[in-house]
Structures are given as structure tokens and as C-alpha cells.
């Protein structure tokens, strides 16, 4: 086996689904309305996808729901025929798609293992010979004679995963195995991943668990609307995925209304926003420099107003507050119609999650309130690391032994 030729080779693969608006299901409908045009949309699930996976690589595929991951896996598995392009694969293939391999609920474990083993390329004799090992791995020894319909969903997934990992495949396609099953089974999956890796198998692994991607994958790929958005180191792909995910989630979670707004309005906070990367942004990667800004418009004469903002997390815990006074920025005298922008640049040390900002403005001396708009702006802090605290401070640790032990 030469290094040059990859285990999986995907070239210009395009897959489209025609989605009729009104599905003609029966002959009668056909006969009664032979010329009725049922409009249809073409959904391009995969668009010119190109990649290669060398032999022995653990390759992660991530993407949001509907990004084409499962379609890609089904094309690789030979369940869907691609519309354009070419897929080449070396060696025997084993698949674990849509939470299982399609068991017959009326049959007992033995028959289902037999059928699925054959479907995955074993001969009936080979499948029967491996039956005990498969059952043992799935920890279902006590349930061998039970019909599959009486299995819990976790048991079914265990059995399916066990079958697919026992057919001596060279290439494994695994979709979302970690989404179900308890912690013990997940650990077992991880053990299998390690074993398969050591055996030099090629594995394509679809998941939403970025931790698992970072832990196992040699490389990963982010799909977005059927296209490859990025392909490379797992950390890079994971970070981009998290960022992408929240960008899209944003419009559904507009900040709450402005009912709590208070102040005498001698000046107004007309706008406020976060910036990252030199532009307005509501996705703030952890650890990077970010800016909060608010734009002010004055209605009357105002001397030395105080501008401040408060950051809170989802549970209304105050995270951070600062004013121009604290920061040593002087505001000065303003007249009607004047405008100004107050900005605070900070390093984003907050824990991943949603944050809210409340901008406010006070008269000189701290009272009364000119304008205060609670939770006017929201943003998502993205990051893979989650310490459990409100912030993730950059830290180093040390450990120094204060006395030597007697023996070396």
C-alpha cells in the first residue's frame, strides 16, 4: 500500500435533492391531474466537495444541522448515488449511520447481528463466529434472546456500534455515535476509537462534540451549506465551527426590549455594539481583544457626563463594569446636537456563552441618570475551553516540592 494513494478520495462531488412542493404519491393524482406542474425546489446538499483522506487517518466532519454531513456520509457509504463527481475508496467499508444499522425489531439479537454482518460484508459463517464477541462488547449477554423491539434505544445503539466495529473494515464511517449512550458506553467508544486508530484503520467521524474532535481527529473538516468551509487541524476547525454556530443562532435571540430604559434624556444613547477584528461583531472569540462602543447624542448642554457600561452573563451575574472616569477618559462640555462615541477595549476573558451589555450615562457627580438602557446589546463568547467559572483568566501553575524524599 503506497502512501501516495489515499484511502478515500472525493472529487467534485455534488448531490442534489429535488423537493417537490406537492408530492404526487398516488396514481389517481397522476391520472386526475396529468399536466399539473408540481413545482419543485432543488436542494443542493453537497456542492463540489473535494477532499482526500490518507490511510490510517482519523478524520472529523463537523457542521451545523443541514450542512450536508449526513448526505456526504451516505454518498460515501454508497446509500446515495452522487449526481456529479467521483468517490473512490480502498478496502472494506463499515458504516454506522443515523444511530444504527437498521435492525428488524421483531427479530432477536442473533438474527439481527447475522443480517447486519452480512450486509456489512461478512459471510454468514463469519458473522456467527463473531456473534459472541459482538454481544460481549455490547454488554448484552443477558438479552440475547430478547426481540430488538424490547431493547432500550441505548442497547440498540450499543449493539449496532458493536457490529460495525467487528466486521474488520478498513474504512469506518461513523455518524453521531456519541449522541446517545451513557458515559460508560461513550468511554467504550473512545477505547474502540483508540484501538482502531492503532490498527491503522481509516475513520470518518461525524459529530457535534468538538471535544471529541480535538481529542481524536488528526484532521477535520467543517461543512457549511454543502461546501467545505475549512479543512485542517481539529482545533482550528472546532473554533470555526463554534463561531459559525453562534453567528447563525444570533437573529433568533434578539436582546430584550427597551422597556426598562430610564433617564432624563438630556442626552441619548442612540446605539451600542461590540467590535472584534475591527468591525461590529456579536461573536467574540475568547482570549482576543474586543471593544464595546456606544454612540451618544446630546439634547441639551451637558458638562462632564459619565459614560459607563456593565457586562452581565445569562443569569444576571455582573461580570465587569467600567466608566470613563475609571479609565481616565475625560468627556468635557457638550451642546445640543453634539455626538460622541465612548469605547472600551478589553481582553475577552469571559467564559463561553452569552453576555449582555448595559450602557448608561450619568450627570457629573454620579446622579441623576441621563440615559440607561439595560441589556441593550448581546454577544456570544466563543471558545472550546470551559472552566466552569464566570471568567477564564490567563493563568500559569507551578508545583514545587519543598523537601526531598529519602530514596531516589
Amino acid at each position, binding site marked *: 500500500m503506497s502512501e501516495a494513494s489515499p484511502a478515500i478520495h472525493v472529487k467534485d462531488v455534488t448531490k442534489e435533492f429535488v423537493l417537490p412542493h406537492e408530492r404526487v404519491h*398516488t396514481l389517481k393524482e397522476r391520472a386526475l391531474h396529468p399536466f399539473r406542474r408540481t413545482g419543485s425546489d432543488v436542494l443542493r446538499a453537497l456542492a463540489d466537495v473535494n477532499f482526500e483522506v490518507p490511510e490510517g487517518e482519523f478524520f472529523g466532519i463537523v457542521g451545523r444541522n443541514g450542512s450536508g454531513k449526513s448526505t456526504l456520509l*451516505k454518498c460515501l457509504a454508497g446509500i446515495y448515488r452522487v449526481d456529479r463527481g467521483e468517490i473512490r*475508496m*480502498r478496502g472494506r467499508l463499515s*458504516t454506522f449511520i443515523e444511530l444504527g444499522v437498521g435492525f428488524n425489531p421483531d427479530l432477536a439479537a442473533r438474527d439481527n447481528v447475522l443480517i447486519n454482518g452480512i450486509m456489512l460484508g461478512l459471510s454468514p459463517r463469519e458473522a456467527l463466529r463473531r456473534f459472541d464477541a459482538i454481544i460481549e462488547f455490547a454488554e448484552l449477554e443477558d438479552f440475547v434472546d430478547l426481540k430488538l423491539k424490547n431493547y432500550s434505544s441505548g442497547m440498540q445503539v450499543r449493539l449496532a456500534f458493536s457490529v460495525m466495529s467487528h466486521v474488520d473494515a478498513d474504512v469506518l464511517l461513523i455518524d453521531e455515535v456519541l449522541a446517545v449512550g451513557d458515559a460508560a458506553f461513550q468511554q467504550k467508544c473512545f477505547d474502540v476509537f483508540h484501538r482502531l486508530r492503532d490498527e491503522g484503520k481509516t475513520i470518518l467521524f461525524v459529530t457535534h462534540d468538538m471535544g471529541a474532535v480535538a481529542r481524536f481527529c488528526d484532521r477535520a473538516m467543517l461543512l457549511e451549506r454543502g461546501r467545505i468551509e475549512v479543512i485542517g487541524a481539529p482545533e482550528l476547525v472546532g473554533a470555526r465551527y463554534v463561531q459559525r454556530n453562534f453567528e447563525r443562532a444570533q437573529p433568533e435571540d434578539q436582546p430584550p426590549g427597551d422597556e426598562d430604559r430610564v433617564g432624563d434624556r438630556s442626552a441619548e444613547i442612540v446605539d451600542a455594539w461590540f467590535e472584534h477584528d475591527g468591525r461590529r461583531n456579536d461573536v467574540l472569540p475568547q482570549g482576543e481583544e474586543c471593544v464595546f462602543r456606544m454612540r451618544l447624542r446630546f439634547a441639551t448642554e451637558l458638562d462632564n457626563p459619565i459614560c459607563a457600561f456593565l457586562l452581565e452573563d445569562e443569569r444576571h451575574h455582573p461580570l465587569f463594569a467600567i466608566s470613563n472616569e475609571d479609565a481616565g477618559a475625560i468627556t468635557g462640555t457638550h451642546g445640543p446636537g453634539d455626538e460622541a462615541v465612548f469605547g472600551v477595549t478589553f481582553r475577552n476573558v469571559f467564559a463561553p456563552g452569552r453576555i449582555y451589555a448595559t450602557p448608561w450615562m450619568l450627570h457629573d457627580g454620579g446622579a441623576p441618570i441621563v440615559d440607561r438602557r439595560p441589556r441593550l446589546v448581546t454577544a456570544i463568547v466563543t471558545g472550546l475551553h470551559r472552566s466552569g467559572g464566570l471568567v477564564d483568566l490567563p493563568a500559569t501553575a507551578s508545583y514545587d516540592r519543598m523537601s526531598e524524599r529519602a530514596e531516589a
Partner: protein
Amino acid sequence: MPAARITGPSALGGSRRRFLYLAATLAITEFKLRFFGSVLGYLWQLVRPLMLFAVLYFVFTKFVKIGGSVPHYPVLLLANIVLYTFFADGTGAVSSMVDREGLVRKIQFPRMAVPVSVVLTASFNLVLNMLVVLGFALASGVEPRWSWLEAPFLIALLAVLVVGLAMLLSALYVRFRDIKPIWEVVLQVAFYATPIIYAIETIDVSQRIREGIMLSPLAAILQQFRHAVIDPSAPSAAAAAGGSARLLIPAAVVIGVAALGFWYFDREAPRMAEDL
């Protein structure tokens, strides 16, 4: 190890051996399921045709009396019912692809294994039921003859027809969901349009209609089975059809249906996972 091109699903899936293993395993497990799935198991498979036989036999010998003049009428009736049951069970594959949706959408495998396995299950039943027919025939005084050797050939011909229909119907059903009720009506019509409960020579219709009935492959096969196995004095399929040449039509239907079924299934197989 050369890199194989992944072309998507197909009817036979590239590997004949895998297709055969799979069809056989699916058929055996399905058969076992019926065999051990209920308290009386296989008996139910037998009771169904036997009950139909008992009812029809009672009606047509005691009330309607069309069976009285036909030699070995009970044996004929039972054999016909058993053969028809095979035809109906085998073509019951119409919904098989849809029923196995879970498999079809999750694994690449030779798609044709599914309808073929249904026909295989039906043929296991047929073999067991035929043993009952055999015992019944011998007990009723039907004498073994060399022409009995025609029986496997006739059953094989019927099986080819059934496999063709199973492929055609199961592939059609993926797209058109009213194929199933339509086929149930066709089966019902076929039951009465075929000489199953009556003997072809006893019905009071014109010669043309009698010969027309024999153009149906099911009727021709059953008629020849009767002539070869049960009653040599009964007209052979050729005689009933009005000449051997006319048997070319049912023969052509069998071959045509099988070819059409294979062609259509093969054409649809790659897209079945999406259309389901």
C-alpha cells in the same frame, strides 16, 4: 488493494455472493419469525390454505356441486390453493422495500435481496405445503407417474413470474403508494379468473373464453400441473388453450414480466433510499 469507485446502491450491489447470502438470510429469518413467532407457529401457515380449502370444498361439493364430476376434485382444489397462496404471498413483496426502510436508508446492500427474500420465504412455505398436498394426493388414490417430474419445472416457472412481479411491484410501490390496494384487487380477480375452485372444462362459457383464460400464465401453469400431477385425463394446458402455439403467449408474459421487473428495479434501485 485497488481503490474501488463508490457508485451508489444498485439492484445486485456488485457482489453476487453477498446478494445470495443476504436474500437467503433475510428469507430464513423471516420464515423462522413466522414459524416460531406464534404459539402454533408453522401450523398457521398450513391452517390458512387448509381452512380456505375446507370452506370451498364444502361449498362446491355440497351446495353448488361443480366439483362432483371432476376426478380428484379435493386434491385439485388443495393443490390449486397452495399454488395460488405461493403466488399471493410472493407478490406480497409489493411493500417489502418500504417495510425495510430502516435498512435501505442506512446500509448499502444489494437492493434486490429484499423482494427476492420475500419470494424465498413464500417458496419455503410452498415446499412444506406441497408435502401436505402430496400426502393428501396419495391418500386420495392419485397414482404416482413419471409426469410428476414436470411439477418442479412448473413451480420454477411460476417462481420466475412471481420474482418478476415482486421486483416490479416493490419498486413501483416506492413511488406510487396505491399499487398495493390495486394489486390486492388484481389478486382477488385472479383467484376467480383462474381455474382454482372450478375445472376449466366444466364451466358454462364459450370455447373462446376458456381459451382466453389459458392465456394467463397462472391459469396455464395450474392447468398443466393438474394434467401432469393429479389427473392425466384432464386437458393439458396446450389442449385447454387450443394448441401448443398459443402457450407462447403465457410463456412470453412470464419472461416479459421477469425482464420488465428486473429492468425497472435495477433502474430504480439507486434512488430508492431517497424516494422512500
